[in-house]
């Protein structure tokens, strides 16, 4: 346990950050939750990677509810595989226009990061490959220029130095143009569309070549592992474009890629699984004693303690909370959702009357937070919420099923997984359960 845990409300507020853990924070604050939340999603990603032969491609989807600890786990996956793979972590946010991301852009991003990596190791690609890439780029450029739109400035020259540097320059240039303006984006995408099979072939050839170069440098390597984080934040229509309509194109890259996917795509009922065989959804920490027919679930001591441990890692709980029970109360209200826990704690730090957080403070905070839920839950959701509360999300009518997707999306409903048989079940967010509207619907 770290010695410099927070001892004041101010320090507690600061240390209970809402973002993912990265770097040294993982060492200080990470709590292994695998005994209280099904780790299937993480282990299956790792299992999948460990089964792969060197150089064997794979497209792996990873998803989870917002704030449940996805990015933190991806950071850990990155660390875990760094020895066997050349891991390249990409924040989609940095590279793509998220309102309008396209599968072709993903290829360009891969080319960019790959060539960047090669360049940083002082490696070069097969000159023949570089030259076909250059030809392809020239064609794209000419095609774009031919469309009379003189304002598009895809430069014909392929960058200085030739070789890998020029391929890097091309991909950077195209990505910048695509992100730069609507008009450029449309024109370049049209050209890319026509030349896509060439882009795909060249990219894969480049990946294969890079892999063989990598092997000479690190004989035991399994190849490249690209992790695309933040792609789960795209709006629904972009998610469908990438992971349903053009799933094949994403799966056909010759390397291992982990894509984060919006959870709505998973629940949209469409068949993404034909292309990506495994689905890895991270559930909440199970803080309940599951009993399907029991509306009001009892709590699991282990689950609550695990949530409390997340807080204990960061703050000196004896000095921040009036009693252990207050902390456990907070854990109950979190529903096993990591960010909700941190958020409630932050709010409690702001509300606390004295130097320590009391049960009364928690009650006030919960009342505030449930109001935020109440303001956006449509009234027709409540009867379905009651149903989920009663039967844990099974045997729903198709219409209610569809409604549950949006409930999972806006975390009014949370997903859990049983540790023994991995069976998934749903339960409503404790903050929603406290709302007047829900209580009324329950009585109805």
């Amino acid at each position: 346990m770290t010695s410099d845990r927070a001892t004041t409300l101010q320090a507690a507020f600061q240390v209970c950050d809402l973002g993912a853990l990265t770097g040294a924070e993982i060492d200080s604050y990470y709590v292994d939750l695998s005994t209280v939340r099904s780790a299937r999603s993480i282990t299956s990603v790792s299992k999948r990677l460990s089964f792969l032969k060197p150089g064997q491609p794979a497209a792996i989807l990873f998803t989870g509810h917002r704030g449940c600890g996805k990015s933190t786990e991806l950071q850990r996956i990155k660390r875990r595989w760094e020895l066997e793979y050349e891991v390249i972590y990409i924040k989609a946010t940095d590279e793509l226009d998220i309102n309008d991301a396209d599968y072709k852009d993903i290829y360009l991003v891969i080319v960019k990061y790959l060539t960047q990596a090669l360049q940083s190791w002082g490696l070069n690609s097969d000159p023949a490959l570089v030259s076909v890439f250059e030809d392809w780029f020239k064609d794209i450029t000419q095609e774009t220029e031919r469309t009379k739109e003189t304002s598009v400035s895809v430069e014909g020259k392929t960058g200085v130095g030739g070789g890998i540097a020029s391929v890097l320059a091309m991909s950077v240039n195209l990505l910048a143009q695509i992100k730069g303006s609507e008009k450029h984006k449309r024109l370049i995408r049209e050209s890319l569309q026509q030349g896509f099979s060439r882009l795909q072939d060249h990219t894969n050839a480049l990946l294969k070549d890079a892999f063989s170069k990598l092997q000479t440098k690190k004989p035991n390597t399994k190849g490249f592992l690209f992790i695309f984080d933040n792609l789960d934040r795209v709006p629904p229509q972009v998610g469908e474009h990438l992971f349903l309509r053009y799933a094949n194109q994403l799966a056909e890259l010759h390397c291992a890629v982990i894509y984060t996917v919006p959870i709505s795509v998973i629940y949209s009922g469409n068949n993404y699984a034909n292309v990506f065989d495994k689905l890895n959804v991270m559930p909440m920490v199970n803080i309940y004693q599951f009993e399907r027919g029991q509306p009001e679930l009892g709590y699991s001591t282990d689950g609550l303690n695990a949530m409390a441990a997340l807080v204990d890692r960061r703050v000196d709980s004896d000095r921040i909370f009036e009693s252990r029970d207050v902390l456990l109360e907070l854990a109950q209200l979190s529903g096993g959702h990591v960010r909700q826990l941190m958020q409630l704690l932050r709010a409690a730090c702001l509300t606390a009357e004295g130097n320590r957080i009391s049960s009364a403070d928690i009650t006030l905070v919960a009342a505030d937070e449930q109001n935020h839920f109440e303001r956006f839950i449509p009234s027709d959701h409540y009867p379905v919420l009651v149903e989920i509360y009663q039967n844990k999300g099974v045997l729903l009518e198709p219409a209610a099923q569809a409604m549950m997707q949006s409930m999972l999306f806006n975390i009014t409903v949370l997903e859990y997984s049983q540790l023994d048989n991995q069976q998934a079940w749903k339960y409503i967010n404790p903050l929603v359960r406290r709302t007047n509207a829900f209580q009324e619907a329950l009585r109805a």
Partner: protein
Amino acid sequence: MPFKKLFGRSQPPESSPTPPPSLAEQVISPWEAQNEGTIARLARFIDFAKGFTLGFVEISFPEDLDDLLKVLKKRPECRLVDFQVFDFSDPNLTYLQDALKQRIDQLPQSISALMTPKRVILVKGLENSIGLFGDYPPVLQDLNFVRDALADSVPYPVLFCLPSYAINRVIKFAPDFWSWKSGVFRLLASHDSQDEASIYALHAQKMLGNASQLEKQERIRLLEKLAQEFDPLAANRSKADLRIAAQALVELGIVHISSGEFLKAQAVLEPIAQIFEKPGWQLEAKSDLAIYIKYLIWRGHLDVVLGNTAKAEQRLGTALALNNDVSPILKATSYCYLGSIKAQQDQIEEAIWLFQQSLKIEERIGDAQGQAATLHEIAKIKALQNNIEEAIALFNQSLNIKEYIGDALGKAATLHEIARIKAQQNNVEEAILLFHQSLEIFERIGNAHGKAVTLNEIAKIKGQQGNAKEAITLFHLALEILQRIGSQDAATSQAWLEQVQQTATLSD
């Protein structure tokens, strides 16, 4: 004119150190009293937050933000805080992160390394780009995505100050962004009765010129509700109520004018005069004067289209005389409208001078919409003077800006004028094409007057082409609209119709 200059942002407001208030000043207002708990939490948030920390302040009236800042600065936790208020009310804003970065780069460096005050950013005006309608507004989609990047690029606590209506849209369309909040602070307005949606409609600056017919109807509905609720003619209305009613009615008038519904606008604007005559109404603040000036300008504008030029001149003149440092935008608008009156009266030199005054202000404050409108008016004069080349160049310049900022109504008006020039040049095909383009826009945004005058012009061309039947049908359509909205153009339309009918009978 370089684009950069047109769209340059105004400088961030200077922050001045506030001396600690004397005891006598520390009187707690009713507003402060009812929000005491929330303000205490907010002050603690500001005290606790380190680095990028996201908070939301729910606030219905923009002016309450000034009060909030005053109150916060009095609190011991915030004495040393350097508050920066960023006004992002551009309705076309999409990339908030870039805008934030730009403004932060412009902030002065702290002078002393020993005493660096804590910096806290308050963002206001974002409700304009969030809008009232439509799914996934671009600014929210982008916010949802750049959330992590913000943590790196904005190293300060940021408080988004929004009306509750806009916060609901954040929850809905930027859920990931919302889920990163560390505090929500809801400040109650001092007014006893408030309807969020209506209040929002009152303050929304989203460009009317680009609002669809449906959006306008919704806005009208909300504003009417507000005007009824705060009925200014009921007895014993408080100043606050009168202020809301006056604002709602002026805004309602503007919506009607922008739909070309002049009689409806008149019905709404006329009773406002009674508010200003009420004993309860005294000009207390600059904002009161601004309401009055705004009323005078739009009333004057309406007078022009209804044919009462003398009255219009008088009202616009008063608006100008009263506007001493109240609102540069309103000043520029007054100059521009006065200019078009002078142009109508053939007092060209005076008109040009007025337009130049208007343009000067618009350039200084970066009001692109106003600038485009003034350029349009100057171009009209050039066209009148038969200085066609220059006129076309100016129209195109105006058109470019309007396209850039998404001012559909302005665009339709300029296309209409260019089409008229083409028609005069006997470039009939191009003229018809442009008239149809402008007609399409007028129809989409629901501008009755624009639609009617464009139909008139097309009818004229048809008549000249000997297509009397089609011309008569179109004239009838136009005339019907013009009569309904009470436009002066009805008489001209009638005359043309009779002329075509005569020619048609003669040639029969």
